[in-house]
């Protein structure tokens, strides 16, 4: 993980389905921040995360990561970022363990078992993901948060379909990451007063 | 070398106002030449001593066949330009060009087939030239299908450009391979191997209709590009001004 990093977004303007989103949005995130993106349904939260990670191009705006301008080429940021979207990026055919190894190839077996145990997936280690329930699938995707060493986390409604225990686990992990100097940007419709250090409000 | 024109071409606003001045004159000039060429060819040129009057199809067939190939060449170049320089105008050009090219290829196929019946005795043979025009037509249809199926504009741009470029590389290969096919296993006997030595009153009208069709197509494509530019640039203030004040 980088010792100190920052993300600055200025004068953003996204257009989707002939509507303007996030017009003129600017904000910045420093090491240790947990930023929550707020907004109604369709306000553009998911679109904003996609723009940051480079999976969608904005109409206008600049994005800088750790002082470098990444507006045109997002690859520096991407090497440091971990993005989990609405569709979680988990291969349905592969088993839980294989999915995790796909993202984190050199994680050692003990660490992997440890993480799966705390996520209560250890019994399903060799089950193909398509046979898991909604919450279990989300847990598989979230396992990366325990196992990889990225600085910037971009999480789109990470608490969706998690049960109470899962929510607690994840909150704890996010706080831990922020304390260790990471940056987290997440969207959520649930109240996470204790968790987020700052809110960014998107007007529709 | 002065590259200013290249950068200007890349600017939709500049291109729009430029094309606005040129589209209509070019189109009208094209129509005029085309009409002259066709009327001359149909009514005044002497009949061919071998084929009789059926040869008069040449005045539409050859220009259209030439256009079908030129359009693809232009699209391929535009594709390269887009992939290398990201020029905004290239995908607009490709989108405007594809249906025009497809229609040209279609007319070439139909007029050729109709011409084949009296001269070769059959509508269709699997000869090199015919087959490669058919493939060309299918390539055009592929690009159109791709553009219509993908509804994301950025993706459609890239996809059409990629396909045009790959087609540009492959079209000569297809042509060459099809020629081989024909020469190897004893093709149909009725191919026009040589251009007849035409008298001037035969090829002059052809020249007119070729030039006419080029200008006709150029005018059409400019118009098509204009609509596309307006749609894509609807956010900029000049389009608003253009549409609300001037009209097309």
């Amino acid at each position: 993980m980088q010792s100190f990093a920052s993300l600055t977004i200025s004068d953003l303007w996204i257009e989707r389905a002939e509507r303007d989103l996030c017009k003129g949005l600017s904000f910045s995130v420093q090491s240790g921040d947990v930023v929550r993106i707020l907004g109604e349904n369709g306000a553009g939260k998911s679109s904003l995360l996609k723009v940051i990670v480079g999976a969608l191009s904005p109409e206008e705006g600049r994005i800088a990561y750790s002082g470098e301008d990444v507006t045109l080429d997002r690859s520096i940021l991407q090497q440091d970022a971990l993005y989990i979207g609405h569709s979680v990026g988990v291969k349905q055919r592969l088993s839980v363990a294989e999915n995790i190894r796909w993202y984190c190839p050199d994680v050692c077996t003990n660490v992997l078992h440890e993480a799966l145990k705390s996520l209560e997936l250890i019994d399903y280690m060799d089950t193909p993901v398509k046979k898991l329930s909604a919450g279990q699938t989300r847990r598989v995707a979230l396992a990366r948060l325990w196992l990889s060493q990225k600085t910037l986390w971009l999480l789109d409604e990470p608490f969706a379909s998690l049960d109470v225990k899962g929510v607690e686990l994840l909150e704890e992990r996010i706080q831990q990451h922020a304390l260790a100097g990471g940056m987290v940007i997440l969207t959520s419709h649930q109240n996470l007063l204790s968790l987020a250090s700052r809110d960014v409000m998107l007007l529709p | 070398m002065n590259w200013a024109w290249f950068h200007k071409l890349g600017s939709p606003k500049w291109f729009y106002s430029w094309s606005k001045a040129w589209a209509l004159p070019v189109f009208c000039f094209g129509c005029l030449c085309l009409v002259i060429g066709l009327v001359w060819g149909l009514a005044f040129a002497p009949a061919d001593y071998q084929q009789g009057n059926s040869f008069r199809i040449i005045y539409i067939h050859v220009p259209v066949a030439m256009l079908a190939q030129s359009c693809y060449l232009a699209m391929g170049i535009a594709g390269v330009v887009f992939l290398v320089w990201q020029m905004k105008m290239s995908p607009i050009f490709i989108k405007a060009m594809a249906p025009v090219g497809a229609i040209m290829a279609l007319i070439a196929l139909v007029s050729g087939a109709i011409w084949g019946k009296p001269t070769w005795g059959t509508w269709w043979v699997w000869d090199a030239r015919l087959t490669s025009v058919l493939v060309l037509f299918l390539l055009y249809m592929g690009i159109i299908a791709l553009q219509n199926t993908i509804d994301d504009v950025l993706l459609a741009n890239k996809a059409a450009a990629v396909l045009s470029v790959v087609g540009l590389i492959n079209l000569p290969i297809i042509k060459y391979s099809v020629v081989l096919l024909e020469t190897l296993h004893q093709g149909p006997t009725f191919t026009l191997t040589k251009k007849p030595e035409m008298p001037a009153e035969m090829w002059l009208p052809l020249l007119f209709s070729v030039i006419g069709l080029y200008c006709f197509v150029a005018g059409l494509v400019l118009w098509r590009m204009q609509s596309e530019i307006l749609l894509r640039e609807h956010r900029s203030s000049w389009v608003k001004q253009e549409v609300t004040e001037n009209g097309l």
Partner: protein
Amino acid sequence: MAFDSLSAFLMMGTHGVYVWSAYGFSTLALAWLVWSTLSTRRKTQDTLRKRFKRSVSR
């Protein structure tokens, strides 16, 4: 004029059907091309007009 009369022009020797059908098809296709081009232009203009009006009234 390569033909003596109008009927001879229309008959084109024995090849009238072929020549005229080829030209007929070509004319139709080209006319469709022109029509579709112009109608897209008109439609584009209309939709943009509407959109701008909406954004002004808002």
